[in-house]
């Protein structure tokens, strides 16, 4: 696990936000993980980025909280987030990973629509974080592998990335590239 201090800070803050039911800040917290996750390309950093983003989406939808199974999910998140950061405080990375894994697995313990909704949030969170990492300079293939998603899922998102297009360096003038292509096909 890389950037342990940062992960600890993120998990602790997420836990406090959820405990005090002030969850609007979870999304910002998730964004803070992307930078370190991109540089380190470390699976633990990526897992935390996806997890916190998915929690921000789940906890900020009021109607989920009224659905059957919410309490079970909420309790599991609270308990295991705490357990994860306590473990990290005592340098027990393996136990921290177990705690994080249990949050993901708690979806399997709830039945009905809520389970499907939250599972789908986690899937979309992976694609969202993948896109953010791609924006941060990773190649699409690399991003897809790190996040365990397909390149096909990522392709549509990449197409929407017109951010700061003017700053993208042109490695070859378009006329030259077209000539290259035409010569090759003639």
């Amino acid at each position, binding site marked *: 696990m890389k950037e342990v201090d940062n992960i600890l800070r993120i998990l602790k803050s997420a836990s406090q936000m959820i405990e005090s039911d002030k969850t609007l800040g979870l999304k910002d917290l998730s964004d803070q993980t992307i*930078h370190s996750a*991109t*540089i*380190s*390309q470390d699976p633990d950093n990526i897992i935390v980025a996806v997890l916190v983003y998915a929690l921000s989406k789940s906890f900020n939808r009021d109607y989920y909280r009224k659905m059957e199974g919410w309490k079970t999910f909420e309790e599991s998140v609270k308990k295991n987030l705490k357990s994860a950061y306590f473990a990290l405080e005592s340098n027990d990375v393996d136990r921290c990973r177990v705690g994080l894994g249990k949050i993901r697995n708690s979806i399997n313990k709830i039945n009905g629509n809520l389970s499907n909704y939250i599972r789908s949030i986690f899937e979309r969170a992976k694609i969202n974080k993948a896109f953010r990492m791609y*924006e*941060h*300079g*990773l*190649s*699409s*293939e*690399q991003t897809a*592998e790190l996040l365990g998603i*397909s*390149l*096909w*899922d*990522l*392709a*549509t998102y*990449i*197409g*929407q990335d*017109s951010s700061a*297009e*003017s*700053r*993208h*360096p*042109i*490695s*070859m003038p*378009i*006329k030259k*590239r*077209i000539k*290259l*292509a*035409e010569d*090759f*096909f003639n």
Partner: protein
Amino acid sequence: MKHLIFDAGPIISLSMCGMINVLERLSENFDGEFIITPQVKREVVDRPMKIKKFELEAFGVKNLIDKGVLKLSSEFISDGKLSSETKRILKISNSAIRSKSSGEKIKMIHEGEASCIAFSNLCKCDNMIVVDERTTRLMSEAPENLKEYMQGKLHTPLEIDMSLLKEFRKDRFIRSSELLFIAYKKDLLPMKKEKQLLDALLYGVKFKGTAITVEEIEEMKRMI
């Protein structure tokens, strides 16, 4: 014999635009072979075959392989040889850039792209790589701009070892957009040739993942 080597990205963007069958018409008008490596096949056929959302597109690509439009690289170079060269390419390219503060290596390219460069190195023939990824092209065509580009993206100071990137200077790249431009110009598309069609094709692949700017698209349109 010429070889046009395909990375996964262009095949995906052409498939998602419903233009994958253009490759068949292009191959009929090309004096050479269209190649995909096992690493690329995994991304464009094997993996999406298991995802319901993309299963149909995977069949479209598989159909092109079955018809011989896309040839597997193993017909020309053994998978073992390609795999060793791919590993060597990955080692060099992914050692070239490091974070100044932590010294960590920044991975720039991955197996698919590396396998295309590896095939290009080994095939000993006139070849070109179709890759939509900006970073791969920059690494070869303008490595001097790579540092600034990656620093801007990663928001962190980087060090670059230009000597490692020297060997990529010989590689030649086009994108799916150039393939569609040629198909349009040669009238190989299933639609009636009209000016707006080129606009639709180029923006189509842009929004499905090809790294092409609006300025480049507009310039391509003016070239007709």
